[in-house]
């Protein structure tokens, strides 16, 4: 494409097919403790 550069190779709606396994880290356990930072976690299945 001439006008667009897409940064992702996958989109989040693809994860709908599998559903959640629930094994991922609880977000507040990482470093924050005072905000909610779900989006910067990594999926346990993709580590």
């Amino acid at each position, binding site marked *: *494409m*001439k*006008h*667009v*550069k*897409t*940064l*992702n*190779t*996958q*989109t*989040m*709606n693809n*994860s*709908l097919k*599998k*559903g*959640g396994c*629930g*094994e*991922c*880290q*609880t*977000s*507040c*356990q*990482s*470093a*924050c*403790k*005072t*905000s*909610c*930072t*779900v*989006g*910067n*976690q*990594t*999926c*346990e299945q*993709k*580590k």
Partner: protein
Amino acid sequence: MIHQYQNNGYNIVLDVVSGAVHVVDELCYDVIAALSGGAKEPTAAGLRKPEVLEELVQKLGGRYGGDDIKDALADVTELTEAGQLFVEDTYESMIDDVKKRKTVVKALCLHIAHDCNLACRYCFAEEGEYHGRRALMSFEVGKKALDFLIANSGSRRNLEVDFFGGEPLMNWQVVEDLVAYGRQQEKLRDKHFRFTVTTNGVLLNDEIQEFINQEMDNVVLSLDGRREVNDHMRPFRSGKGSYDLIVPKFQKLADSRNQEKYYIRGTFTRENLDFSEDILHFADLGFTQMSIEPVVGDASDPYAIREEDLPKIMEEYDKLARVMIQREKEGKGFQFFHFMIDLDGGPCVAKRLSGCGSGTEYLAVTPWGDLYPCHQFVGQEEFLMGNVEDGIIKPEIADDFRSCNVYSKEKCRGCFAKFYCSGGCMANAYHFHGTIHDTYDIGCEMQRKRVECAIMIKAALAE
């Protein structure tokens, strides 16, 4: 739903539902803006209709040539067809399942010591905040907490336990004994404990460092940045600053962990709104994993972030993002927790819809074994859910937390960042609005900015 913004010379288009991120030229940016905002998302078939191009030429023809507009529209149509642009929100139909889902407890925050050897001005463990009840958790209470976690974790294998405070190192023997107990139990019960500890470093020594490196998956080291900033907010009870004692210990610990699996974590307040300098100070001290959080305080606290501080805070995030790109390119890169975003391997939709897990998957345990939805609710009796002896005795509190999501909050519905913060921190919402079913507005503004910066950094580094 589309979110478009320009930052550091990049034209960025985020398709909110798919999470697809596109860096586009000016023309395509304007074409997408002209096509979005309708009641329904455009479809690829709709975009191929001749009248769409005609309307675009009418709108944008003064600035761009007709053939160029046609070309850009073809790109937009291709992305739409591929499910990377103008994706309809189908997640809301899943929300009933999210609310009804059976949850297991997978993480505990153990308040191992409601006592501290520092007197940080903003601390929620400070005298009075814990209703004056200073206490250390006994091994017996801690053991029951781990037993409670195992018993309520269903088939979940990875269990997280954070040793928190106050200052956990003031009750270190109990931490060591609980880790040993956890290691023994995980073999018997087919579980795996991931232990973490948060410390101010005052009591850190070689022996403790070795134990941390052997047993702790992550360690959070509290420091606010530059000496004067840190020592103003994080003094000893005598008033003396803590920086000089702590920094060398933290540097040694971070190096001994190969600069991995730790965070140097600070808090910024309205008294150091130039907080990007504190993050760069961390980098200059040799740290590579860092976090600086906006303070959470009562609006009447002199150091609390106010709405009028937001323009300066936004500027700081922008400045930090630009410096991070530059340092990365120079081979001196570092991680800033709030700019971490994994566009390919981030959390699944189910996780993004279910939020942080407080009150359901994540609970805090007081030194005497009471259970609260998270560490920020500790001491607020209306949120007392049960105890490690009897388990959850007020399941209605968990139900309330479980029902809270990005579709249950009006402010989240129209927000582009909703799948990155998952509705934000419920403790902050309660603190400012008296209900968990709201959002902390100043926090939302900062969160949106951080998501924008994080994506912009990805764009810059993809060049």
